[in-house]
């Protein structure tokens, strides 16, 4: 009885997911169609499955190079964001001072600013900063990562803060301090491992954001050797015409790595991590 119910539930879930995914079916189907086929047969399956638009898209975008650039930017930015935000959030959550509250609210409030209003002052400021410091920030991968850390800070701190306040037992830390841990050790050996579910979640969310982001990289990265995947994809979007089949093939190529990554990452959101630690 119970098993039957669970199977039914599974089937229902799959059905729902498929309906949910129907728009993606259109992307997939149309990435195999030529322009005239799209016109005659907008919703049906493609007549033939040829990978010509995929190989065409890969070639035009210089896919492998762009993939590498995107990968480096995403991994480095996310890693730094996670570590820095975890530290900052933990510190803020554990202090009762007014100031740490103020910083916390400043951080989350900045998440409310639409990026479009920041970009002009931001780029002008980066320019003055370049002159002040004497090295290049714009059009460098490092500079872009630096900006991602800035824009990612609000969300990261916000999520870790919620976790520390809500699910991280203070008793555990107190016990560790009695055992002779200093703050540094306490963070790395006790707090950070316990944050695993939040870390994984934040990593997933930030990876998606940075991997797909177009506007910020397009403003900073100009040289041909620095193109990310979303920048490369723009070659299919003309002033008047869009090469839909190539664009959709490119989109499929862009999202497949993220989906694979998500499937791998979600296994690590293990049940009851914190509880286990308290017991042990």
């Amino acid at each position, binding site marked *: 009885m119970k098993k039957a119910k669970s199977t039914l539930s599974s089937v229902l879930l799959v059905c729902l997911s498929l309906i949910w995914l129907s728009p993606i079916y259109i992307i997939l189907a149309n990435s195999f169609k030529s*322009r005239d086929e799209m016109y005659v047969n907008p919703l049906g399956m493609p007549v033939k499955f040829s990978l010509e638009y995929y190989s065409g898209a890969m070639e035009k975008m210089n896919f492998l190079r762009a993939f590498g650039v995107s990968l480096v930017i995403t991994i480095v930015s996310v890693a730094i964001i996670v570590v820095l935000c975890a530290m900052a959030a933990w510190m803020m959550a554990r*202090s009762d001072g007014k100031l740490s509250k103020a910083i916390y609210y400043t951080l989350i409030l900045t998440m409310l600013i639409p990026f479009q209003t920041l970009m002009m002052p931001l*780029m002008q400021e980066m320019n003055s900063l370049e002159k002040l410091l004497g090295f290049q920030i714009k*059009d460098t991968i490092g500079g872009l990562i630096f900006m991602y850390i800035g824009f990612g800070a609000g969300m990261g701190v916000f999520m870790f803060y919620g976790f520390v306040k809500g699910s991280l037992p203070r008793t555990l830390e107190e016990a560790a301090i009695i055992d002779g841990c200093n703050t540094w050790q306490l963070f790395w050996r006790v707090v950070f491992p316990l944050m695993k579910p939040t870390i994984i979640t934040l990593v997933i969310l930030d990876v998606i954001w940075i991997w797909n982001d177009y506007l910020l990289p397009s403003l900073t990265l100009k040289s*041909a050797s620095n193109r990310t995947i979303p920048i490369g994809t723009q070659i299919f979007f003309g002033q008047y*015409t869009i090469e839909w089949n190539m664009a959709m093939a490119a989109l499929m190529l862009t999202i497949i790595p993220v989906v694979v990554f998500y499937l791998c990452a979600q296994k690590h959101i293990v049940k009851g991590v914190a509880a286990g630690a308290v017991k042990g």
Partner: protein
Amino acid sequence: MKKHVKLLSLLLSLCIMMTCFAACGNSSSQSTPGSSDKNTSAEQPVSASKITLFQQKAEIAEQLQQMAKAYTAETGVEVEVWAQAGDEYYTNLKTSLSSESGPTVFTLNSDSEINEVKDYLADLGKLSFLGNIQEALLAVRDGKTVGIPMTVEGFGLVYNGTLVDVSKMTDTDALVSMIAENSANGIDTLGLSQEDYFLAGHMLNFPFALQEDPKAFCQKVYSGEVKLADVPEFQQYAQILSAIREHQTNPIEVTYDTNCGDFATSKTAMIHQGNWAYGVMSAYDPKFDMGITGLPINGNSKICVGVASVWCVNADATAEEQALAMDFLTWLYTSETGTHYMMDEFGFIPVVDGMESKSLDPLSTAVAEAVAEGNILPWTFNTEWPAGIISTDLAPITQEFFTSSMTGTEYLEALNAAFVAAAGA
């Protein structure tokens, strides 16, 4: 632990305060224009043999890359083509120019854009081939030539010669009755599409361009001296739109792709488009005879031809880079390889006297012929109209017209109000 937190907080607050000061200092120093640009060129890394190029047309992106390679092979100067930016092109360009990291050579697409960034445009007056380009096509600001036309483009009623006899379309009434007759047979006579420029930009240019002095006319409209609803050309224009609303598929539901597809597969007799649309139609391999004619207001048959984009050179670039950029443009417009790319690879209609292209598509040929015969009207939408008005005001008003029972007069009054408001701002 508490101590650490306090220390951290203190540090943070210090940072905030410092940056606030920095911010204030920043904005005040930036508000004096020209104070900082003199020494920048010296500080920028000097790359003696490289220029950067940024332009909007994705249609020619690939050919442009090849051309850059060919140029490097011939002259040893590297041309780096920046990635396409699609709809974000101008925003992106403005941001990069404003932060002193702009491209060496770039394109601009309207007079209002040129006005906005004119402080960043180098004088191109010394280019040798300028004399061979019609003066009217050049962009001139404060006595300096700042932009060179990429090509000319033309739009009007693109017709299918087998479905419609344009010689019978002698005036507005003929077109209106044609729309009604064809709809009885289930055919759309004049297909429009939903995109802002196609819905409320290009076609609306006709009644403006048909005035005796379009430039002066625009000013009269902005100052309130003339009301669009009182002008016969505009009344006829509204009449045509009303007929479309009454008898045809709602343009708001038609995308550009469908628009061109319908035409290329002979489902609509005419569409209002320009020679650029051939690129989309060619996917369907249309075999019928096609051409472009004007909107028959007052019996007009002239099409609208103008310059969509001009090449500009960044005045913030080093003198050396600017010189290289000039060399590049000269090469593009005068050398054998350069002109080959312009005409055969990009498919551009030539703008330099004596240059004749043999590989134009049918629509571009029609435009080139109209230019040669002088059967053309000027563009006002990218020269006289207030910046951004098409997408922010005119398109929404036109959408309202197509989704409600607004009368033609009400429509013209709404357009009029938008023009006055935008020109006054």
